[in-house]
C-alpha cells in the first residue's frame, strides 16, 4: 500500500525515505532525485507536505526549491504570441544542452549517494 507524497509524479513516502537515506536532505536535491514537485502542480500541492515529512525525517526544516516561471503549465502557443518571444535572431546558435551556471551543483554529492551509484 502506497502513501503518496506527490500525486502528480507518483512519488511515494517510501521513495522519499529512500532519497533521504541516500543522503539527500535538501528539497532541491530531493526534487531532482525523486521528481516530486515537477508535475502539473509544480509543487503547489506537495512542497509543504514533503517539507513537513523531511522535517520529521531529518529534524530540521528545509528551504523550498526554486520557484521558476511559468508558475503553472502554459500553452506554448500562448507564449509564442508575445512578440518578444521572437526576438532571438535566426543566426544565433543557442546551445540548448548547456547547463546554466546558476543551476550548477554547488555542494558536493553526499557520500552515501556516491557510494551507492558510482
Amino acid at each position: 500500500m502506497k502513501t503518496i507524497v506527490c500525486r502528480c509524479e507518483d512519488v511515494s513516502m517510501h521513495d522519499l525515505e529512500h532519497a533521504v537515506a541516500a543522503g539527500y536532505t535538501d528539497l532541491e536535491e530531493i526534487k531532482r532525485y525523486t521528481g516530486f514537485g515537477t508535475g502539473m502542480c509544480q509543487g503547489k500541492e506537495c512542497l509543504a507536505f514533503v517539507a513537513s515529512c523531511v522535517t520529521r525525517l531529518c529534524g530540521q526544516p528545509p528551504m523550498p526549491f526554486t520557484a521558476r516561471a511559468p508558475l503553472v503549465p502554459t500553452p506554448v502557443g500562448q507564449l509564442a504570441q508575445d512578440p518578444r518571444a521572437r526576438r532571438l535572431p535566426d543566426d544565433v546558435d543557442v546551445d540548448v544542452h548547456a547547463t546554466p551556471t546558476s543551476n550548477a551543483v554547488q555542494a558536493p554529492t553526499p557520500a552515501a549517494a556516491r557510494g551507492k551509484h558510482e
Partner: protein
Amino acid sequence: MEPGECLAGGVEGALERGDADGVLGRGGTDGGLVRGICNGTPPGGVAAWLIIVRSSAGAVGVPGSAALAAYIVGAVPLTALGDAGPVGPSAMMVGELGCAMGCRALARWVREPNGCDATGGVLAEATGRTEGAGKPNMVREPCLGTPPGASGTARPHAPHSVAVAATAIPQNGHGRFGTLIFLHNHGTASVRVGQTNIVCNGVRRRSGPIPQQLLSFDEAVLRATDADTGASALLAAGHLVMSRSLKYHRPRSAFCLEGHCAGCCARIDGQPNMRLCQVPAREMHAASTQNALRVGSTDVLEIADWFFADGLDHHTLMTSTRLGNFVAERVVRQLSGVGKLPTESAAYLPPEQRTCDVCVVGGGAAGLAVAEALGDVTVLVIDDQLTPGGSWHGEKSVAPHASANVLSRTTLLGAMVDERRTLIASSPTRLVRIQAEHVVWATGGTPQLVPFGNNDRPGVMATRAVGRLFFQHHIVPGDAICFVETMPTPPTLLRALASEGVHIECVAAADVAHVTGTEWVQAVVLTDGRVIDCDLVGISTPAAPASEGPRQFGAQVRFDAASGGFVVITDAEGRTNAANHWAVGDVCGYVGPVRAAAAGTALGRRLRAIVRGAA
C-alpha cells in the same frame, strides 16, 4: 416476482396488472417508490420501456425520478415527461443517479442471466455513445427513441432489450451498497426479472439549477447545470475516476477543485492536460481520459501499481544490457507520461497590456478586501479561479462578484526580466502583461495531503473541495463523510452537510492508518483497528501558503508547519523584503477567510494612503 421469473404480456401487461410495482413493493415504507413509463419505440421492435427507480432512505427517491431516469437513459424527450411525474430540481438529482446507474453502473454490472449480451448492446446505445458520423467527439443526444434511419446512422441493436429498475437498498446504513433489479423485455411477450448487486456512492444534487447542458466523457453522456464545471458534472453523474496517475496508473479523481492538483486532468475537446475543474460545463463538449490503456473502465497499465508495490527508484531501474536498457526506455516512455499533443493548435490572441497602481494577485477573501479598501486607486485583481471568492467558496455560498477590475481565470506566470519587472499572467485566450507600482500577494493557500495509506484514492478530497461541491455546484458529495483533520473543519460546512442528512465523522489525521476502496473510498481504517464506513473523505488541513510567486520575486519565506508550509515573511504593515511587494492573508500563514479579509482591508487602506501620498 423473483429474479429469473418471466411475466406474460411484456412490460405493459405487467404494469397493467401491477406486477412491476410488485417487484419493488408498491409504495414502499420509505415512501420513495416511483415509476415512470414511456412508450418510445426503440429499434429492434421493442414496444415499450419501463424504468423504475426505487429510493433508499431518502438517498435516491423522489417523485419523478423514474421519468428523469428514462429521460437520461434516452428513451423519451424531456418535454414528454409532463404526465410522468413532477420534473423539478429534486427529480433531476435522482435523474442523475439514474444516469449514474443507467450509464455507468448498469454497463458494468448488469449481465443478462442467460449470457446473452443484450444489455451491453442496449446500454451502449443508452449512453449515447458517439458514432461514426464524420465528426468524432461530437456529442449527440441519446436517441433510443429515434427510429433507425432518422439520425442517418444505422446502429447495431440487441435482439431484445432491457428495462431498468434501479434500487439502492441500504445494507450498511449509508446506501452505498444495493441491489439493482432489471427487467429484460423479450419483445412484447414477456419480461424477465434480473438482479445484481451494485456499489454506488451517495453523491447527489441538491436543489438548485436544473441540469441541461450536455457533455460527454469517454462513452458516457451526462447533463450539467450552469453552475457546473466539467469535474463537478462528472462527480454528480457518478463518473468518479477522472484520470490515471503518471507512473502507476492509479485511479485518480478531483482532489482540490481549484485547478492545482492533476487529479482531474483530461483531454477536453482535443486539448490535452486541461483541468476539468477549471472548465465550465457549458464551454466543453467532449472530454476523454488520457494516459490510459483502457479496457472498459479499467486501465490495464495499472499493473505497474502492483509491480512496484512501494515505489520505484528510477535511478537503479536498469537492465544489465545496453540493448535491454534501450528497449526498456522506449517502452517505459510509452507507458508513462501525460496526454498526447492536440489535434489542432488552439488560436491565441496577442498579449494584452494592463497598467494599474496596484495589482492584487489572488481574488480570495484577502485580495477582494484589499481591492475594496483601495477605493479610487486603479487596481487590478487577477484570480485563477472561475469565480472570485477563494476559500469562501468552501465555507458558504458566495454571491457573484461583479467588478470590472477583477480578471478571473487569469493566473500569474512570473515576471519579465525587464526594467519594470512586468508581471505576466495567462488567461484562457491570451497572455496579460501587467505593469503595477505595487504588487499585493493575496494568493492564499493550496490544500495539502496528509500521510496515510492510499491517501490519493478517488474520494479523498480537500475539505475546501467538499465545500465547493456543496456551495458552488449544489452537489451533496456523499451520504457519509469522514473528515480527517489536522485543524477543525469549518462548522458552517458541517452544519450545511448535516442539514442534508449527511452522516459526518471527524477523526484526527494522526489516528488514520489507511483508506479502503480502489475506484472510490469505502472506509477509513484507524490505527486502533476501528473502521469508519464512508463514501467521501475530506482532508481538513491548513492550506499551504501559495508563496511560489512572492518567492520568485525575492520575498523571503520560512517554514512553519502550524501555518501550513512556507509562509511569506512580512513586517507589521505587510511589506515583504521585495520592494513594493506586499503580502496578506493565508500566504503569510493560514488564518482563514475572516481574518484574511480583515487584514486585507487594513492593508488596502495603508496602500491607498501610500499611493495617494505619492501622487
